[in-house]
């Protein structure tokens, strides 16, 4: 199997997010970037597939702050190649990114019969929706999102996937390769790679930096305004020392006849 994974850096929402002066984007200086969580699962699932069925795993990302860390991390986990598409892609939205990636795949003739393209099923800033469906349409290949399990049948060159619905219900689907899937959660939690191993890989492996032709792809329409959520329905905050807070909490629980 020839696995291509497209990954993307997003703002880490554990940190404070600040809206930039244009009111249309986040203030880059405040953002700590991290690999999109579902992309992290996509990398893990790809490595699991490689361990089970063999093949080659290529991780591809658009240039972004801290993206090298994510790419080296994938190499340390077992990816064979890491490719960084150079340029400034900060304002690119899902449809534009999908076009860039799809053109790259076409130009490099990467779509062969045994190609499985993967990405995270959704990112936290996907205002225009899931990347994989735009890519699937551009490449005219079967597409399936919210996947939590993948098995390959080399005799038929197809994959069997589980797609998540609600309440723990899942559906099993059969998809011929080449195809594109969005990983929601890998079959196992993403493995932890010690820093020493990443340092070692940084010495031996290389991130391939490439430029792609300017095909006049538009970044996409921007939003009109970003804002912080209105605080109307906000919680009553219990303030004070832990001693005072827990005392208030017990009062509330007893008032509501819970204790």
């Amino acid at each position, binding site marked *: 199997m020839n696995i291509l994974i497209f990954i993307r850096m997003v*703002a880490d*929402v*554990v940190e404070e*997010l600040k809206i930039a002066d244009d009111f249309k984007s*986040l203030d880059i200086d405040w953002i700590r970037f991290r690999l999109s969580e579902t992309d992290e699962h996509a990398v893990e699932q790809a490595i699991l597939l490689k361990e089970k069925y063999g093949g080659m795993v290529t991780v591809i990302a658009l240039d972004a702050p801290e993206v090298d860390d994510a790419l080296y991390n994938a190499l340390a986990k077992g990816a064979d190649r890491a490719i960084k598409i150079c340029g400034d892609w900060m304002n690119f939205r*899902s*449809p534009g990114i999908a076009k860039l990636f799809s053109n790259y795949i076409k130009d490099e003739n990467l779509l062969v019969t045994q190609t499985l393209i993967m990405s995270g099923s959704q990112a*936290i*800033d*996907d*205002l*225009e*929706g*899931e990347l994989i*469906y735009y890519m*699937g*349409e*551009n490449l005219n*290949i*079967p*597409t*399936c*999102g*919210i996947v939590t399990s993948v098995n390959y049948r080399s005799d038929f060159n197809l994959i*069997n996937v*589980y*797609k998540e619905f*609600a*309440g*723990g*219900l*899942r*559906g*099993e*689907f*059969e*998809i011929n390769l080449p195809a594109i899937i969005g990983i929601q*959660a890998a079959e196992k*939690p993403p493995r932890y790679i010690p820093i020493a191993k990443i340092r070692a890989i940084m010495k031996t492996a290389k991130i391939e930096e490439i430029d792609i032709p300017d095909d006049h792809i538009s970044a996409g*329409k921007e*939003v*009109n305004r*970003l*804002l*912080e*959520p*209105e605080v109307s*329905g*906000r*919680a*009553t*905050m219990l303030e004070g020392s*832990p001693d005072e807070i*827990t*005392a208030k*909490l*017990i009062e509330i629980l007893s008032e*509501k006849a*819970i*204790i």
Partner: protein
Amino acid sequence: MSKGILVLADHTKEVITDVSYEMLGIGRKLADSMNQPLYSLIIGDGAEKFASGFGIADKVFVVADKKIEIAIPELIVQILKKIVTENDISLILVAGTNISSGVGPLLAAKLDYRFIHFCKNLIYENGELMATSQLFGGKIFSETVLNDCKGIFSILPGSFPAEAGKASRFPEIIDIPHPDDGLKIKFKAFIEPEAGDVDVTKESILVSVGRGIGSSDNISIADELVEIIGGAVCASRPIIDQGWLPLSRQIGKSGMIVKPKLYMALGISGAPEHIEGMKDAELIIAVNKDSAAPIFNVAQYGICADIDDIVPMLIDKLKERK
């Protein structure tokens, strides 16, 4: 100016989800203010029996066929594209659920419409449509204005009143044949969830742990708390993905929908996918060390602190009380 708004019904295993009625309600409101008809589309074996409950729409398209075991995005989009083009429909509402996910971007790519995800609100004013979406796990909202009022919107469940989408009227029903175009993906089977040791949907008290709990061992403080106040321990997705608790304990979009008397969220940020599963709890109390965590926007009481500074002390005090 085009001629209509369409709501795609969302259902799994013969149950219409509430968000379908939410969409019909807001769809009706928009249709009235824009002076356009409201359509709905229901796809699936047995779809015709749902149509009678969709009287708030002017016309309901039904694609009922034994062959449709489940409507996947590819099939839905084949059908939608035809209806949208033939009826010159400008606005399409789809549910922001796992079952309908993928329909928006795929249809957008085929029709060259704009797709806007995670919508919490849609307002029509001065000839323009404004969509408010929830991004970054609920920490930031965005506003997008569509001057041409043309687009596809996915609606976050719980954004609009479902009651507004229900009517006793009987709609005009139009049967549409199954397109039979052949699909690239084959549905094989449903996989039912394994029954867990407890059914969290039946518990009146839930202590829910999120990534902020830190480690699998720390879940024991939640166990200890429910030993005293009753109920069960449940969790947000990362805890389940780590394998620290079984899937039957997951609350949210892909997990269980619960309505307990008390939902205590420990170290949960409050992403929309989590909120979807617990927003209707009678009392929500959240402990989170980030004062900007979106969970505080749905909780009645919030404590901005470290779990370790609050929960062990709470347990001690509750023990003393006994």
